[in-house]
């Protein structure tokens, strides 16, 4: 049964064409020398040159990166703590409320999250700027991190932690020496997820930003409202390129690790028999 039928090949080809064609066209037209984005007038890299000279975009990119690094790191720490509490924490007062607050932001429309945080920041008189974006991004991405990490925590063998405790580890050492290395891949993918969510966010950042700190998505948004621009195509191409490179590299690394782990298991089996 496991053979590719014509129907399956067609549906996959059409489906992936639908998913990828828009991005491929975007990349191709970023090398178009014409200012008219839909008319091809020859190959050129001039829009990349102009992009590099555009200080507003470079500044926005810098702000975005700063926000993303700080918020995803904070979110990873808080999200891992939250996941650990939910999976290993046992009973405590207000556990239901806690797990509700972890899952609710995942399904909350961004406009509502953004609006509510803005009203909070204004209510307590906190000036809007980079700090408020970091707080907002940390809050929603910690929930994603916690979901990713807790799905790993659920599947791993608890007796390993108990063994460490029996052998005299403090709970903190048991976490540091046993649990953390095992859940590390989930923690890393949680960080990456939080990082991309923060890089990508337009709506929540628009609500929580101040006049001094414009992030890249806000900058892109105000540009694309006016229609297609070749500079934005160039910028998009760079962003697509970075992501593609990152995802392919990550999958190759994890594949190699899996192969190595398999080889180790086989070597261990040989050693036993």
């Amino acid at each position, binding site marked *: *049964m*496991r*053979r*590719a039928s014509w*129907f*399956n090949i067609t*549906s*996959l080809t059409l*489906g992936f064409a*639908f*998913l990828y064609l*828009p*991005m491929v*066209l*975007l990349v191709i037209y970023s090398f178009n020398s014409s200012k008219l984005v*839909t008319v091809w007038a020859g190959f050129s890299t001039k829009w990349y040159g102009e992009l590099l000279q555009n200080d507003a975009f470079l500044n926005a990119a810098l702000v975005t990166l700063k926000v993303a690094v700080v918020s995803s790191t904070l979110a990873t720490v*808080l999200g891992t*703590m939250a996941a650990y*509490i939910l999976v290993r*924490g046992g009973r*405590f007062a*207000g556990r239901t*409320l*806690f797990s509700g*607050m*972890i899952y609710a*932001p995942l*399904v909350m*429309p*961004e*406009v*509502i999250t953004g*609006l*509510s945080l803005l*009203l909070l920041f204004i209510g307590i008189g906190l000036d809007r700027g980079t700090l408020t974006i970091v*707080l*907002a991004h*940390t*809050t929603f991405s*910690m929930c994603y991190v*916690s979901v990713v990490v807790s799905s790993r925590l659920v599947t791993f063998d608890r007796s390993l932690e108990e063994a460490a405790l029996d052998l005299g580890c403090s*709970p*903190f050492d048991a976490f540091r020496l046993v649990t953390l290395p095992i859940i590390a891949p989930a923690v890393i993918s949680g960080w990456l997820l939080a990082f991309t969510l923060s890089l*990508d966010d*337009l*709506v929540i950042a628009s*609500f929580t930003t101040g006049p001094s700190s414009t992030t890249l*998505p806000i900058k*892109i*948004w105000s540009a*694309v409202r006016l*229609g297609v621009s070749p500079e*934005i195509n160039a910028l*998009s191409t760079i962003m*697509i390129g970075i*992501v593609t490179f*990152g*995802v*392919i590299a990550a999958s190759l690394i994890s*594949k190699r690790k899996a192969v190595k782990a398999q080889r180790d298991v086989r070597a261990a089996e040989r050693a036993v028999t």
Partner: protein
Amino acid sequence: MNIRRFILIAVPYAWLLALFLIPFIIVFKISLSDLALSIPPYSPTAKDGISAMFKAFDLENFIFLASDDLYWRAYLSSLKIALISTILAVLVGYPMAYGMARAPEEWRPTLMMLVILPFWTSFLIRVYAWVGILSNEGLLNQFLLWLGIIDAPLTIMNTTTAVYIGIVYTYLPFMILPIYAALDRLDESLIEAAEDLGCSRLKAFWLVTIPLSRNGIIAGCFLVFIPALGEFVIPSLLGGSGTLMIGKVLFEEFFNNRDWPVASAVAVILLLILIVPIVLFQRNQQRQAEVES
């Protein structure tokens, strides 16, 4: 040790209380306030004293929402757009998930990566990519004119059709992944048994494969429907001024009209509408988890 445990629980708990729950209470509170020409633009504020605050609260904003048919139409058209997009996403996503589950074993990690990769690229850029394709002088119209299928450019940009395309395109991975997960687990001998017992391939698909992947379909539908309902970027960028969606109305009420109390009331009602699908989704997930364990 107990202090450590307390800190471990208290830090993320306090964070979420302060930055998730309390903001909602504020939204709820402001939705009951009156518009005022001050900063912040609503009254009464907490400065006026708690009792004055409660006395001044009323359902005025909600009555206003109910009486102005702009909001009714926006809620209804959001529901309609989210529903139709979800159905379209099933129709596009199911054959893809099916094809992936039937693909040779060694292709599957690559196909999986191809589905996930768009999810990592910027959402805004993926929506923006369609602007150059769908506009009147865009690539799709150029292509169709070149083929000779149409004589005059089609108007797709700034219509609801463009919004459907945008939503299906951006949320397709959310539909494919749960369906693929369900189909991947499916025991193929069941289909063979159905065929041995005289079912045609189509009938076996309808009677065995579809019911057994039902949970994947349901999960995928919720994962598309819920975010689509409150969507702001796609209707603003592709739908133009003619497309009414509640996320867009909220955004405009807040930033253009600066009517915070009404924007908050819109948010409260959107939340109430969302609670039903969210609770249903949770139940579906729980039931599935119980079946598996």
